[in-house]
């Protein structure tokens, strides 16, 4: 079995200490959360951090999924499984649960963290795309205090983020729950990275789409937001022809790589198909949710 190269190892006992350690060790230090993206890369000797700062002891501070005043807050050390099993997520942020079912496998989801999937900035990572659809932001903390970054602005390129070397991502925040949402992914096999995947979130005003967002992964050098497609949907009543028009725009907005998962043409076409399917499901869910509320009264 392949094994990592040598590194120094620190354990942070608090977020503050993690920041101090990051400052002390400089840009060659990396935070270690679940490790399920970083350690395989280190074993294959594609990553050589000089220092690992292990933050797993910060569960008390950073492992949570909670809804407060209509805002969903997900701590950076929340495991994928926590998100998948959270009643709030299943109830109001369905696309996150949809996406989680596609992420790696149940064992990896026991260790892999939400923060890690943002900070790793793999353009094929599902969770950032789902959070882009929700209009989410992440909170990062550094020596100068806290700031927020919109998830859609987080990745600067493949495996490169707007997080400074001495900052730590602490939380993802979803400002408002959608009425309906959905996440679709095409993978070659269970647990594979996306050939193409996308999530949509909808905010309805009666029968009209008041607002919507679409986040996509695997189809560009970063997580993408399909703004043109969103624009095509906004203010309209949902129907298949509308979805298709939006899907065409989303397909134009992406820039998929040519790789073992397929050609750019294929992935663009997948985006076309998945936008329609995700919209159908999200709208259905939005309507279903309304129905349920009506029944419940």
């Amino acid at each position, binding site marked *: *079995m*392949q*094994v*990592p*190269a*040598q*590194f*120094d*190892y620190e*354990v942070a006992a608090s977020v503050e200490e993690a920041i101090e350690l990051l400052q002390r060790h400089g840009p060659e230090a990396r935070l*270690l959360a679940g*490790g*399920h993206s970083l*350690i*395989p890369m*280190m*074993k*294959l000797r594609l990553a050589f951090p000089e220092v*690992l700062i*292990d933050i*797993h002891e910060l569960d008390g501070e950073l492992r949570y999924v909670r809804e407060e005043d209509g805002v969903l807050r997900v701590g950076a050390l929340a495991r994928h499984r926590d998100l998948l099993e959270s009643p709030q997520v299943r109830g109001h942020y369905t696309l996150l649960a949809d996406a989680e*079912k596609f992420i*790696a*496998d*149940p*064992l*990896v989801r*026991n*260790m892999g963290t939400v923060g890690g999937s943002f900070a790793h900035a793999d353009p094929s990572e599902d969770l950032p795309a789902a959070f882009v659809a929700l209009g989410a932001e992440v909170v990062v903390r550094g020596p100068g205090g806290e700031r927020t970054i919109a998830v859609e602005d987080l990745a600067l390129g493949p495996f490169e983020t707007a997080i400074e070397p001495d900052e730590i991502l602490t939380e993802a925040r979803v400002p408002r729950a959608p009425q309906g949402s959905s996440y679709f992914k095409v993978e070659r096999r*269970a*647990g594979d990275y996306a050939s193409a995947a996308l999530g949509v979130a909808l905010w309805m005003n009666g029968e009209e789409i008041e607002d919507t967002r679409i986040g996509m992964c695997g189809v560009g050098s970063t997580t993408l937001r399909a703004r043109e497609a969103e624009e095509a949907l906004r203010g309209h009543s949902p129907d298949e022809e509308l979805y298709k028009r939006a899907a065409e725009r989303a397909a134009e907005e992406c820039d998929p790589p040519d790789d073992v998962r397929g050609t750019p043409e294929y992935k663009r076409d997948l985006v076309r198909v998945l936008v329609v399917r995700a919209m159908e499901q999200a709208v259905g869910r939005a309507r279903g949710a309304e129905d349920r509320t009506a029944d419940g009264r």
Partner: protein
Amino acid sequence: MRIQVDVNGESREADVEPRLLLVHFIRDTLGLTGTHWGCDTSNCGACTVHLDGEPVKSCTVLAVRANGHEVTTIEAVSSGADLSLLQKGFREEHGLQCGFCTPGMIMTATALLERTPRPSEDEIREAISGNLCRCTGYQYIIKSIEWAAKHNAPTRVEVMP
């Protein structure tokens, strides 16, 4: 780095390099070779152990990460001649052939039944989807887990510390 890990109910201490993978700590340092490894990329699940009660892939966890935590391996799933129901199920329903993925499968399935004593077939399929088997075509593994669920009883023999 000096670490102390509670392994199968026993406190084990060792000096390890920070980069030592938990699977190698278990196999090479402690000599518990029931935990296997089959890939470099946390895809196969042959190395599945429980870390604080949850199944994880020990090839992708640093041994130092387990410092002060609890690890359970296949060796503690039963003691002596006794077998857990899952172990019995795998034997009764031919849930293994070469046996290489088996400890990982049993660790994953043990955790599944602890949380979901009567899983549906789909839940079983999903639960073991991170444990690759090249021999069985999975059907008899699923039957083995169903056998254990059907004979509903504690799935783990408690090991005395």
